[in-house]
């Protein structure tokens, strides 16, 4: 069953199985990573799914097209190791969604990913409860860094 606004991306890449390197295995301690990508831009959704897959990590990836869908998912009992949260989204933006998730007691690593570059734009986003914030789009190095921090946290 899929919720409105949620796409489920399979754990395999389109052309075959995701290969798990020894380095990636050690990053996640042998368990499948649960990742939620929250962004209304289909282009960014595609890129971030590809980045997570390209990291070699065995991940289950869900996509939510706005903050409200993300909050509803967590409220329904879904838990995630990593949430990639866009800032500007319709219905519920990333700042509100992050604040809401933290108020609910969600302990996932929430990484803000935004096209905003000015401090005054990014500060409220971080203060809402992000672990970190990056400028979009993520690149392979940023993704590796995020996954390494996630593994240290675990």
């Amino acid at each position, binding site marked *: 069953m899929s919720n409105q606004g949620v796409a489920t991306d399979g754990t395999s*890449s389109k*052309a075959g199985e995701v290969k798990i390197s020894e380095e990636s295995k050690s990053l996640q301690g042998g368990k499948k990573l649960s990742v939620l990508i929250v962004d209304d831009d*289909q282009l*960014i959704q*595609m*890129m971030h799914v*590809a980045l997570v897959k390209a990291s070699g990590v065995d991940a289950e990836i869900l996509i939510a097209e706005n903050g409200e869908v993300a909050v509803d998912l967590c409220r329904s009992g879904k838990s995630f190791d990593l949430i990639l949260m866009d800032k*500007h989204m319709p219905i519920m933006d990333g700042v509100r969604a992050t604040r809401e998730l933290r108020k609910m007691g969600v302990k996932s690593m929430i990484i803000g990913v935004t096209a905003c570059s000015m401090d005054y734009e990014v500060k409220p986003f971080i203060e809402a409860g992000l672990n970190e914030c990056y400028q979009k*789009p993520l*690149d392979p190095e940023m993704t590796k860094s995020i996954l390494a921090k996630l593994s240290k946290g675990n």
Partner: protein
Amino acid sequence: MAAQTPRQTMDSFVQYVKGEGILDDKFDNTRNLVRETYPEFALDIFKNYVRDADKLMRELAHHLKQPVVDYPKVDNITHRFKGASMSIGGCRVVTACLELRDACDRKDKERCLEAYQQVVTEYSTLRDKMKTICKMERAVIDDEAGGHSKK
């Protein structure tokens, strides 16, 4: 003298476009992402970009034609356009979008229209190059799938 492979042709073209300042290194990041496991990924991204950007440009044109400009709306559309353009390395479009956002912030209609014209110009240039890149990328995919590059 050996003929260039489709990949070499595309690499040369991309170098030229980057030299003109139309694309930056984010383009290469996108282009090379998951290439081995999903060869059509970059082509899908580029086609999606052009489709989405065309739509956003139509929305911008519509809102800026109104007698009273809805600045928050124009700002929102421009922000989305800037984000999408940033993803594929369209740096000159990004700069033009920043100017338009600044004009919206100042609620300066004349400046908005000037900045919008710059966005139109830069996007038109980028779009033209992206169309060529999509054709070239298609040729690279077909060539490498067929194994013809070994000739």
